[in-house]
């Protein structure tokens, strides 16, 4: 909210002597940080941030009250009422407890305009003067004192005024020209023809004050905050009045604001007061809250003198009765946020300044807990992948239904994962797979000229279920582009499926995951973290002996029928070899050429033997012959 410095000083003159920077610091230390300062109408306006619990501070008087309490100063007293209340000039009926008090007056307007100083005040606060004294005065009062009021054209009102719940089917055209269908939980001001205002939110168009208005009916009431919030939200009608009533206005201000409004109209345009009266009574005040010295000491971090605490609360307007070791505190009518002892402790600390709070480390009362294995697993995976040259990405958890459909499994319908109110269609489904998002990121990097794409993401995927989407922590990796070719020693080649298979193996993924081709030369895989090994305890494992005798390595160059898998061949050969001597058996080179016999490719199989004794040549020759025979049984032949 904008607070104009001169107007603030009119409520608490001591502020005039404080420079702006110091004033901003003071307000911040009270819990009202200043977001900016603007030069306005020959003065300065401060953009003060007021938290949602402090409706009472949403005015110059409200901020002044805080400053006064901190500085130990008094506020400038309000002027006395212009005239005693009299008999009602028309009937005002309060039919809902949501409006316990309704102060009003009827005036006959004379000639005269809104004073220029008031117009400047309104402009400084980004309000537009309407040059209608009744309207401008109401606005000025709201900004200065925080209590919303309203002026009706008294001659447009038919019969008695009732504050009641709207009836089903009723509608009202509000001041903004919008005709609104009312709900039975909307509180309205009505005359005999129907609603004339949405209580605490906005007046009606038919009874508004215009240049032609001769007589005004003033309204200065108190409305239940919840009711006003609900109506403002239902009609998306958030006004200065609804903000203040919605956060809790001061019921004691109803009569005072009415009087201040009357005074203004008398002064500005020679208005004649025909009568002022009040329907209903102030709502019952809350009960006193007891603040124990021990609670205050626990929160403050040190024992505080109760009499000083009492004095601080009194400066904030509280009624305080001291007892042994505690204070019984009745909050002022404008504070709706002081309901429990902790609230009061905060007030004492706030007024003293949080800078006085001591500093201490909390003692450890029990043994520290370990980091969860699932958390450590993700940390370890991220680090390993980053070390291997991959970049961790962060993408949105929601994607378009099309992108989702391409990778989410068939048992995972998007309906169970769809948002009711997405930012847009393209962000409407909680993703069943991370791959679509990585595919997009990969594409962007390719367009930016990246030679190689190495991305991964660790994030939840969602599985539709009867109780809502179930989250599964997942890892997805995409890899594509050209490997090597950036120096004279590493020949360039394209990334292939095999590279991803090798990576998956490095990460400890037991069964090779499905490798998807996401674009030309771009591949990816995704796994649930549940299938990945959890990090082992960081302790040295039991010793397992290894052979110190020399190893023997032999190669076999084979012609293999196309269609025979490496795994079939490997198993057949290994099956006839002694398990305690065979260390490794694998294809280390593939050669395909039209010079080879039709339907054949050449594989160089490498066998490595090692045992707990020195291996003899003849022994190894025998094994090689057996391995070859096993291969030949599969249609493999020795390459000449």
């Amino acid at each position, binding site marked *: 909210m904008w607070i104009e410095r001169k107007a603030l000083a009119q409520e608490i003159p001591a502020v005039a002597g404080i420079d702006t920077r110091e004033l901003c610091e003071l307000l911040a230390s009270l819990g009202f940080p200043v977001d900016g300062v603007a030069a306005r109408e020959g003065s300065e306006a401060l953009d003060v941030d007021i938290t949602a619990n402090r409706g009472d501070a949403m005015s110059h008087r409200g901020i002044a009250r805080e400053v006064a309490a901190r500085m130990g100063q008094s506020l400038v007293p309000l002027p006395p009422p212009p005239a005693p209340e009299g008999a009602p000039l028309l009937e005002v009926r309060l039919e809902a407890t949501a409006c316990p008090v309704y102060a009003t007056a009827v005036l006959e307007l004379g000639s005269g305009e809104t004073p220029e100083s008031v117009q400047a005040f309104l402009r400084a606060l980004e309000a537009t003067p309407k040059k209608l004294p009744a309207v401008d005065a109401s606005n000025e009062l709201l900004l200065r004192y925080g209590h919303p009021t309203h002026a009706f054209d008294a001659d447009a009102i038919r019969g008695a005024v009732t504050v009641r719940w709207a009836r089903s089917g009723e509608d009202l055209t509000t001041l903004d020209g919008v005709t609104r269908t009312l709900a039975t939980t909307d509180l309205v001001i009505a005359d005999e023809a129907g609603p004339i205002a949405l209580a605490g939110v906005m007046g009606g168009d038919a009874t508004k004050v215009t240049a032609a208005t001769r007589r005004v009916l003033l309204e200065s009431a108190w409305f239940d905050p919840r009711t006003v919030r609900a109506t403002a939200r239902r009609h998306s009608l958030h006004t200065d009045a609804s903000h203040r009533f919605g956060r809790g206005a001061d019921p004691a201000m109803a009569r005072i604001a009415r009087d201040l409004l009357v005074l203004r109209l008398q002064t500005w345009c020679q208005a004649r007061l025909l009568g002022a009266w009040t329907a209903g009574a102030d709502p019952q005040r809350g009960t006193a809250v007891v603040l124990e010295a021990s609670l205050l000491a626990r929160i403050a971090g040190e024992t505080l003198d109760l009499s000083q605490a009492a004095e601080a609360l009194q400066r904030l307007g509280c009624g305080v009765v001291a007892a042994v070791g505690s204070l019984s505190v009745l909050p002022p009518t404008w504070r709706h946020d002081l309901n429990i002892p*902790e609230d009061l402790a905060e007030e004492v600390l706030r007024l003293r300044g*949080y800078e006085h709070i001591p500093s201490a480390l909390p003692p450890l*009362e029990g043994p520290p*807990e370990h980091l969860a294995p699932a958390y450590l697993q993700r940390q370890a995976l991220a680090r390993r992948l980053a070390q291997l040259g991959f970049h961790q990405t*962060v993408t949105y958890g929601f994607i378009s239904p099309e992108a989702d459909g391409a990778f989410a499994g068939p048992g995972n319908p998007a309906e169970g994962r769809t*948002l009711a109110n997405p930012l847009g269609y393209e962000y409407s489904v909680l993703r069943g797979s991370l791959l679509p998002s990585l595919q997009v990121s990969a594409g*962007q990097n390719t367009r930016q000229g990246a030679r190689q794409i190495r991305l991964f993401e660790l994030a939840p995927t969602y599985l539709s279920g009867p109780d809502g989407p179930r989250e599964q922590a997942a890892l997805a990796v995409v890899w594509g582009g050209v490997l090597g070719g950036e120096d004279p020693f590493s020949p360039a080649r394209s990334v292939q499926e095999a590279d991803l298979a090798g990576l998956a193996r490095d990460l400890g993924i037991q069964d090779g995951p499905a490798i998807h081709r996401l674009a030309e030369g771009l591949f990816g895989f995704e796994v649930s973290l549940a299938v990945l090994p959890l990090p082992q305890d960081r302790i040295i494992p039991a010793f397992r002996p290894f052979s110190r005798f020399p190893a023997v390595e032999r190669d076999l160059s084979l012609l293999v029928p196309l269609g025979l898998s490496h795994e079939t061949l490997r198993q057949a050969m290994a099956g006839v070899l002694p398990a305690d001597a065979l260390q490794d058996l694998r294809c280390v080179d593939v050669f395909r050429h039209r010079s080879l016999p039709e339907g054949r490719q050449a594989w160089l199989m490498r066998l490595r033997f090692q045992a707990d004794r020195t291996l003899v040549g003849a022994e190894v020759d025998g094994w090689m012959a057996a391995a070859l025979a096993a291969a030949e049984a599969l249609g493999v032949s020795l390459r000449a």
Partner: protein
Amino acid sequence: MDQLLPPEIDEAARSFPEALAACGDLNALMRLKGAYVGREASHAARMMDLLKAAPKEHKRELGAQINAYKQQWEEALKGRQTELESAKKAQDALAAGWDPTLPPPVPAAGALHPLNRLMDRLVDVFRPLGFHVEEGPEVETEAHNFDGLNIPDDHPAKASSDTFYLAAHPELLLRTHTSPVQVRTLLRVAPTLTERGGIRFLAPGRVYRKDEIDPTHSPMFHQVEGMLVGHGIGMQHLKGTLEYALRTLFGPHTEIRLRPSYFPFVEPGCEVDVSCPLCGATGCRVCKGSGWVEILGAGLIHPNVLTYAGIDPTVWSGWAFGMGVERMAMMLSQTPDLRLFFENDQRFLKAMGGLD
């Protein structure tokens, strides 16, 4: 002294540095070495002859002078020899096929995401104080996201204009903060809180709010929540812990400042400012000249939050804080646009994320 040695020796000494510099290869250097310090017919040999012939009373002084020259020449020759030898080695290597100045094959370097890196760092900072990590789902119930946190049921944050809800499950939403992890954790540990001796944890994670995507807004972002429950916990413990943590993060001279503020789930509540880590609190663009930067919101746990979880607020008390990771990352790195964190350009990730 001069009179002790003939002028041609002094002349040779004067011209030595120039002659040394002129040696372009090891052969030239060997010739120069021979001429100055060789066993025969060198300046050194000649001086030794002079020394032998000199009168006894001059021998000592002359010897010192000769030694000084010899030592100076020998050291300089040795140094130059090392230089020429290593140059020859490099040249030989080039000729043999490996040019050490050629770009070598460098192992690929990847990066952690800067947001993850920052969250990991925060966990590292709090670990020595006995904090562990608690996590919770991103799809949450209204009860965990709002009700358990003392947020009134007509709070504007609950509106569909602010919070994403699931179409098929109207009671489910995407959590709007990491605070529901507080509720879940407190509910879980409540029965064993005494045996545990309270609890202290961090809850880093992703959260969602219905904000349009622009340079300073994102519908998904990250928070780190911190919470501690114990006996007799007050504002001094919040201040002490944050002072320790923020000094570990930003340096030992960092100051912190608590300002009163309001969050429904704490009482008292505060905003925490840190002395600007970029300018050392002298005033810059980031701290808008104030020397302070707002870094997190915190406070003592509201008794209603403890009560909701089944924890007696007259026995237990604690503090909690919540911090926006993107906000902190942008402040520290001066990244101009929030969207960069979700674009995942490898150049950005490599430069910002690193490996730790």
